[in-house]
């Protein structure tokens, strides 16, 4: 301790105690932000995977091009369709020839394939039940001969997405509780060290609100500082991840990042506010003798 300027020492020691609270808050918020980021990417990925699920509408032989065009437009306009792609019977034959490696049209003497429309669904409808309902509705159209999709693949994708979602939910709930407990603990320790000051403030006639106010302002300030440090760290992580895995840029959604950052700030403010309020409330209600236990 610098005996020449003890006031500076006291201020430095108070600042260092505040700093440790801010660091604890920022690290905990960073962990929560990372989890939020994982959930956002997982959600985006599940939407991406689901929207690649689709089915093929096989059209009847004798449907006129104008009717096909009209039918495709009606599909595009429906609420469950993300995109459609019309494939003529010639294009289908060409693709199959490439896959088989031989010219089956020449061998058979005719093209047995039919024109079709590949339909990609919106993520919300990419499940077996919805597809089954859509299939039933489509089959009522005169132009449609058959609707084809891989039911087992749809089920598998949905099952895996559900399982991953559940694991993330349980994990994030646990982490959230741990984070709240850690921040709460840091703040309680910081207030505990000031319990005698709080009691002195009461003894000179300060009201509970007057005593609580500066603690709560400081708590919120620490929450905001912690949140900004956490956001800086998260931005660094996002940058590094996108550098290492460039495909992630396709899943990037600036609005969601902004929402995540706002959530981190709000969470920082909320947890520090509640923890400070509760901790100060506890010490203003304790009798002097109980402060020693």
């Amino acid at each position, binding site marked *: 301790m610098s005996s020449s300027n003890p006031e500076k020492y006291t201020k430095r020691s108070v600042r260092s105690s505040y700093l440790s609270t801010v660091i604890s808050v920022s690290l905990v918020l960073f962990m929560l932000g990372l989890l939020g980021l994982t959930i956002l990417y997982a959600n985006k990925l599940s939407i991406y995977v689901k929207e690649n699920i689709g089915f093929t509408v096989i059209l009847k032989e004798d449907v006129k091009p104008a009717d096909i065009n009209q039918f495709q437009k009606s599909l595009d306009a429906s609420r469950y369709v993300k995109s459609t792609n019309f494939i003529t019977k010639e294009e289908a034959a060409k693709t199959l020839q490439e896959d088989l490696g031989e010219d089956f049209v020449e061998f058979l003497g005719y093209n047995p394939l039919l024109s079709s429309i590949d339909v990609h669904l919106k993520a919300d409808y990419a499940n077996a039940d919805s597809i089954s309902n859509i299939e039933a509705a489509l089959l009522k159209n005169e132009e449609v001969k058959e609707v084809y999709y891989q039911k087992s693949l749809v089920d598998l994708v949905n099952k895996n997405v559900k399982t991953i979602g559940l694991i993330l939910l349980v994990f994030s709930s646990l982490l959230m509780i741990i984070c709240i407990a850690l921040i709460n603990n840091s703040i309680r320790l910081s207030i505990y060290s000031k319990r005698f*000051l709080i009691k*002195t403030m*009461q*003894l*000179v*006639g*300060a009201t509970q609100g*007057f005593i609580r106010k500066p603690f709560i302002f400081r708590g919120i300030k620490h929450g905001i500082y912690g949140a900004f440090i956490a956001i800086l760290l998260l931005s660094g992580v996002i940058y590094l991840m996108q550098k290492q895995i460039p495909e992630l840029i396709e899943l990037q959604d600036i609005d969601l990042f902004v929402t995540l950052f706002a959530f981190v700030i709000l969470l920082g403010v909320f947890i520090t506010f509640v923890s400070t309020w509760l901790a100060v409330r506890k010490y203003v209600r304790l*009798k002097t003798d109980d402060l020693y236990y």
Partner: protein
Amino acid sequence: MALDTIIDIKNVQIHQKENLVLANVNINIEKGEFVYLIGKTGSGKSSLLKILYGELPLDDGEASIAGFNLKELKRKEIPFLRRKLGIVFQDFQLLTDRTIDDNLMFVMKATGWTDKIKMKERCSDVLSKVGLTGKGFKMPHELSGGEQQRVSIARALVNDPEIILADEPTGNLDPQTSEEIITLLLDISKTGRAIVMATHDYLLLNKFKARTITCEGGKIMDSKYPN
């Protein structure tokens, strides 16, 4: 109750946890009186003072202090009671994280002062009353025990209270400094404030004679009313 009565205690029972330590306490203190409260450790002196400043609830009996009825005192009224009192402790209980000036300023802000010029004037005024002019910039730990107790007394004087309750204010001080503190408190009582001082220091009692209330054997003996 006489017009000049500032503390009026009737048939109060004082408990420490489950044990009754003082029974049938009847005390009447007038404005400007200096009263010693003496007794062994655990005899109930501090508990009596704690009841007077609202730290302990009054369960049995009736008591009023500075116009507050302690029997009906609500939790949110306690700060307003304490603004009418000055409280001085053995361990000073200063705000150790701020200067002497800021300690006094805190009391003023907490009790509704807003005019900064008046606050500074009051700060200098009370510091000069306790002989600490020019030391307001110091932190509490930079002062001696006697000086810290003077700050504590200055703090008690900030709101010009009608009563000062002092719980063993000389308990941590050497004899000479103790005498200085008692002299200061006696001077303050001459300005019309009642002072109730709990103490163990019988040497001081003999040197600076005043009304003495003794807590002994679960009872109160008052030198003002020997019978």
